[in-house]
């Protein structure tokens, strides 16, 4: 039987519902700590820390979402 989801990347309602339910509300990892870094080196480290928290938040959600392999990144390209 043809699996429409594999060919189109569309999700079934059940998959979509599961994805929505699984993706719990997580604090915005891009937020900075309240204290301001002093100096360029500390500022760069703070930016790296933000990126690390962002990666961890995405990974946490990723683990909870059963993402079909056919779901492509949201790029848009026309030839």
């Amino acid at each position, binding site marked *: 039987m043809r699996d429409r989801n594999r060919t189109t*990347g*569309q*999700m079934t309602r059940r998959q*979509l519902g599961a*994805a*929505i*339910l699984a*993706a*719990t*509300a*997580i604090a*915005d*990892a*891009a*937020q*900075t700590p*309240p204290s*301001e*870094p002093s100096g*360029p080196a500390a*500022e*760069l480290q*703070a*930016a*790296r820390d*933000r*990126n690390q*928290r*962002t*990666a961890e*938040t*995405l*990974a946490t*959600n*990723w683990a909870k*979402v059963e*993402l079909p392999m056919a*779901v*492509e*990144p*949201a*790029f*848009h*390209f*026309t030839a």
Partner: protein
Amino acid sequence: MAELTSEIFFAGIAELHRMVSAKEVSAVELARGFGGRLESFGPRYNALALPLTEQAIRQAKAVDAEVKRGRLRGPLQGVPYGAKDLLSVAGQITAWGARPYAAQIFDYDATVIQKLAGAGAPLLGKLAMVELAGGPGYRYASASLTGPGLNPWDRTRWSGGSSSGSAIAVAAGLAPFAIGSETSGSILTPAAFCGVTALRPTYGLVSRYGAMPLSWTLDKLGPFCRSAEDCGLVLEAIAGGDRRDPGSAGKSFYYTPQYARKMSDLRIGYAPADFSEWPDESARPAFQAAFETIRSLGATLVETKLPDFPYGPMIGAILSVDAASVFEPLISSGKVDQLADQKQIAGLKAGLEISANVYLKAMRMRRLAKDAILKLFGDVDVLLTANSYPAPKIEEPLDRHPDRAMPKDAGLTALTPAGNLAGLPALALPCGFAGGLPVGLHLAGVPFSENTLLAIGKEFQSRTDWHKRKPPGVG
């Protein structure tokens, strides 16, 4: 030359065009009057990047000659405007609000500049902006080559960004309309802080050819105006397919208020917490009154909430990687250190280190989030939320956590990143004041539903006068 009155400086596009067509005022008089005003008042608010009054007067002379011959082009003919300094204008400095690009000159016009010239709208000048449209994030309002955008309602407060000058110019009557850009909040935020109406179009509806790229799949250009109706008129002129913009949707836009759906046919989704819990105490009466006005339009109000996704980290990852890639030559040359904001400098550098895996996770989850958001629009036509707080003080760090505890119910407060990730159109509507500062509503709809958003905005503005208020001291 006729004396231009305050009424003219705060008139809408249709009225200005009527006056030009009827030869009650000439396009040259408008260009000279608004241009002079932009040059004298603009620096007071750090709103002006580059005056182009003489060029505007030359364009206006051609318009007057056309009007004299009876050649009428459309509602923007003879109505001058300002453009955010991320749009290229041939032969003129386009600094992107950033010191490293302070002498940058392109030899071509951005598509929106071409389209507005074709519509007969003289360009008054380039308007100030946050450096590199905010890049991956900045800490202070001072993150701009021209200094912090000062709010016309209170110059100790920020105008919002990154389209600072565009919002200020319209709020202070320095231009009848202006063009800005949004990657994540750069139209909606300054519009709310300065008390002007603005439209963020559907992704791909307005060509970005000739605009500084920040994030290829998020960048949009849109108008700041005196009213929703004016936004419709400007959008009609600047929308349209463009093969030079790979993100172009290839669609035109026709502003058709005469075919607007009846308000009683619409379903507006909202979250009560957005109006009762999230706003500052001082802003709640304004938001609650605005909500009651929306209710009085006759639409069905439906409690709803956004699908649960980490919108902030998703857009943060995408924007950081795109911006770092766009500005890699700036970073590798070391000139990135000439930027004004230390957080932005560090964010650009660190953006180069984000792994492809993280980026692709964000872009694939974005696909899920978009599907889920569009599914939400099966139940409602439009989402409504409030911009929860008025403009912060100029010297305040913009990334500081609020002093008070945040409500547990997220409501629709993530609508700005969510709407940008999904490419949705959005309308910013002034809806009152808190402590003397404007506050605003935020409406978002499905892609290409601009006419519905504008119809709601027009109805709201027929029952309120917040969009007609003038800041103190602007004449």
